[in-house]
């Protein structure tokens, strides 16, 4: 365990925690380590306890760790109600220290800013330190920062102290600072970094064991989040239109797209609400542009109506749904997987939508591309269902992973030159919704094309698109739209990308089944459970929510006697979906559920497996 560091930087919102941690993570990656980050933050602009956690080590990392071993507690410089015992929020200044003590592993390191945190205010601190064998380095980071620059630069001092205590080379940190800052700001930060490093190295006697691990990458790495991967996947599929309304945690992907699109001659639109957002994506797509929209669960509720329209008029769109803890406003910045049923069943009528739930940033990139391929190949809406965890976690991926060709094609359209000979209604309207379309996909024409005019309608309609309540037409059209799914199933299966991932020894007697962003966490738990030698458990992480991979899940469940179903909600929505599709496996499935707003740590899955699967024997 000591071959890796799990570093937390904790402060108030507005203290620069995110940018400092991202730069530090990049410096660690450049030093040859693998990276996995996790963020905890309140729905608040200034103040409130927030931290960013970086796990870094020489081996591949698929999850946050168990607890952590190095705390840089900056204190909350925006903290309210200092020293008022009865204050609702308590003493906020010290919270970046006190709120993080529970998770700090034995033998861990604490650096705190004595310029903000008065240790006298922290109850039982010395007892806790002694009990847990923590190594404490109190440093007046604020004073150091003030001396050379401004007190907000105490982050830099904290990073300098961290580097000193880990005996880490400063050069990757300095290179990143040089790239990000200019002039006196750079000079000041540089001297703060170096001075703190020197002061800590010279002043303190190091009592802790944790040191900077050595690692090496065989090829250049990129540090990306799930939100980045989604945006880059969309870009590479030729998506040049996004419409949205801000809502955490989908805002991250929206922001990245809004930054990229002007650069590539695309269009981004922030609009009045999510009904409009999804409707704009429909309008842009109708006029011939690859388009997307998205939201968190709350905004997706509003999209329910245009989602149904896209199904009925067979308009290709890609919608993102970034889950956070609900219902209603819920916990805006906390993760959850409780919108599975929402996304599957919202909107009236039998649905014709595809839902993909990627498990990590690589899958997020590939499945976003897949989402566009299915939407624009089969003319229906595709939803990419992810969460605050996947959207925000940073991981390193080989740069070469992204070295791929763009694909702007729209196979579900018809070329103008083919229109004169395509089937038409005697009135001259094109049969946009023809009965006998192969795989149910009747190619769409685009406004402006000659001989392509047709009528799109949210009402049930005839082949040329006119409103019809004729029962025979109705059944043919419903059956045709539904028939796309077997072709889509085949298309997904034919792609050489990661969707439903099996992990661990084939011969294992037990299984762990999960979906979406828990993929890496269960894989780490599986490794640990099998580490004693005998194969005990294997895993299946499902991404294809709809169409459901019935065969693959069936053969997985058939191959084990009992399965733990891991998901972040209270009603076991994925387990419910499995039972709905498979029917027969109810008594072999054991739910491990978490809904406190934080993602699973691997140890929680190990403990859950031991209790529910092994302990049940």
């Amino acid at each position, binding site marked *: 365990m000591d071959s890796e560091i799990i570093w937390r930087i904790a402060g108030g919102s507005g203290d620069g925690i995110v940018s400092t941690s991202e730069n530090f993570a990049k410096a660690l990656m450049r030093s040859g380590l693998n990276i996995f980050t996790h963020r905890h933050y309140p729905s608040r602009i200034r103040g409130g306890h927030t931290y960013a956690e970086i796990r870094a080590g020489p081996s591949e990392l698929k999850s946050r760790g168990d607890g952590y071993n190095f705390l840089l507690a900056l204190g909350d410089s925006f903290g309210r109600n200092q020293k008022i015992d009865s204050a609702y929020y308590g003493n906020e200044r010290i919270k970046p220290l006190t709120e993080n003590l529970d998770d700090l592993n034995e033998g861990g390191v604490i650096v705190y800013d004595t310029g903000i945190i008065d240790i006298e205010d922290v109850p039982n601190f010395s007892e806790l330190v002694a009990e847990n064998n923590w190594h404490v380095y109190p440093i007046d980071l604020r004073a150091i920062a003030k001396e050379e620059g401004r007190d907000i630069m105490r982050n830099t001092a904290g990073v300098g102290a961290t580097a000193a205590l880990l005996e880490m080379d400063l050069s990757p940190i300095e290179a990143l600072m040089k790239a990000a800052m200019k002039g006196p700001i750079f000079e000041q930060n540089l001297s703060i970094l170096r001075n703190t490093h020197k002061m800590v190295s010279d002043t303190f006697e190091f009592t802790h064991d944790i040191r900077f691990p050595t690692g090496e990458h065989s090829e250049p790495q990129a540090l990306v989040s799930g939100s980045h991967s989604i945006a880059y996947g969309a870009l590479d599929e030729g998506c*040049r*239109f996004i419409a949205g309304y801000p809502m955490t945690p989908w805002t991250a992907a929206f922001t990245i797209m809004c930054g990229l699109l002007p650069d590539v001659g695309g269009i981004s639109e922030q609009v009045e609400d999510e009904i409009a957002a999804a409707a704009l994506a429909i309008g842009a797509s109708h006029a*011939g542009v690859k*388009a997307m929209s998205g939201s968190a669960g709350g905004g997706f509720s509003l999209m329910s109506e245009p989602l149904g329209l896209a199904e009925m008029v067979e308009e290709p769109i890609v919608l993102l749904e970034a889950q956070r803890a609900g219902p209603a406003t819920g916990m805006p910045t906390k993760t959850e997987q409780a919108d599975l049923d929402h996304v599957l069943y919202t909107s009236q009528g039998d649905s014709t939508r595809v839902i993909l739930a990627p498990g990590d940033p690589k899958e997020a990139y590939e499945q976003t591309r897949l989402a566009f391929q299915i939407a624009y190949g089969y003319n229906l809406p595709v939803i990419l269902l992810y969460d605050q965890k996947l959207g925000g976690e940073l991981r390193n991926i080989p*740069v070469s992973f*992204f070295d791929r060709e763009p694909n702007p094609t729209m196979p579900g359209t018809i070329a103008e030159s083919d229109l004169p000979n395509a089937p038409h209604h005697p009135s001259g309207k094109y049969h946009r919704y023809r009965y006998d379309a192969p795989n149910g996909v009747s190619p769409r024409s685009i406004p402006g094309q*000659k*001989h392509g005019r047709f009528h799109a309608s949210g009402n049930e309609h005839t082949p040329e698109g006119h409103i019809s309540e004729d029962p025979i037409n109705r059944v043919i059209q419903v059956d045709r739209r539904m028939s796309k799914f077997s072709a889509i199933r085949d298309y997904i299966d034919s792609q050489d990308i990661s969707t439903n991932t099996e992990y661990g020894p084939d011969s294992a007697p037990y299984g762990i089944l999960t979906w979406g962003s828990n993929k890496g966490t269960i894989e780490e738990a599986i490794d640990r459970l099998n580490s004693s030698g005998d194969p005990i458990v294997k895993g299946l992480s499902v991404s294809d929510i709809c169409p459901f991979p019935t065969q693959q899940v069936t053969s997985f469940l058939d191959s084990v006697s009992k399965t733990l179903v891991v998901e972040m909600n209270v009603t076991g929505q994925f387990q419910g979906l499995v039972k709905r599709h498979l029917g027969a496996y109810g008594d072999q499935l054991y739910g491990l559920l978490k809904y406190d707003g934080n993602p699973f740590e691997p140890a929680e899955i190990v403990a859950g497996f031991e209790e529910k699967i092994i302990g049940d024997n």
Partner: protein
Amino acid sequence: MNTTFSAIGENRTVEANEFTPEIEPQPTWCPGCGDFAVLNALKKAVSEVGRSPEEVLLVTGVGCSSKISSYFECYGFHSLHGRSLPIARAAKLANPDLLVIAAGGDGDGYGIGGNHFMHTARENHDIVYIVFNNEVFGLTKGQASPTSLKGHKSKEQPLGSAKDPIRPLSMGLAAGASYIARTAAVNPSQAKDILVEAIQHEGFSHIDFLTQCPTWNKDAKQYVPYVDVQKSEEYDFDPRNRVEAAQMMYETETALSDGKILTGRYFIDNRPSYQQEKISRGSMPKEPLAYRYTDQNYKWERSFNYVKNRHT
């Protein structure tokens, strides 16, 4: 100009009857419905400006009047109740060469779609928006609509509506529409002229089109006699003057409650359309995005360069 969207920019003579579907469906509107007049005026106006059926996208909401997309030969899109505008404006951004017209009823546009109306007007998209205003919900059988007069009775408002009607012209002005007019089904020549102006205007054109409902609004007038405020000696205001326009709108809306029908052009402003604003800021390409997907020579950007520059 574009070989894969060759209906656009043909510059040929277009006849009004090209917009009439050659065979069924014929309109299902009630005999005497004002919606017929909108359909006829629109056929004349679009042919007069020389746009052919396949370069027109007509996006409608849901309701009696929204069925116009079935009866007007073009690319039609009968969408959702109240949602014609966000679909229409995105289509226009995707391909500004299209003539994009949105249409729907007063409940559709001023009620359920009111938020979209406000924001589309504010953004000043270069589209025409026709609101068929019959002061009642027709297809759902006579309930009070946002423009129904106070006292309107129906099974849902058995004691008469307690609400004052909204002021649609004033709403359009406050929200930012740059061309605002009211016309009436009983005034086909003025209606056609106003539609032509609205199509030619670069920006959001809001037309409040009074369409009598002979079935559910029997008490309401047939919108006769009407007065054209531009032609009448009685009124003198400058539609390019926002303050005078606001006053004239207020008077017109109040007069309607008293049974007096005023129509005409109320506001004309030359502020840049949304797409002009976006193009001038570099946040929208000059060449319609829709054409890029059929351009064999376009070199599509890829994310690899961003990953190398930003994430390593």
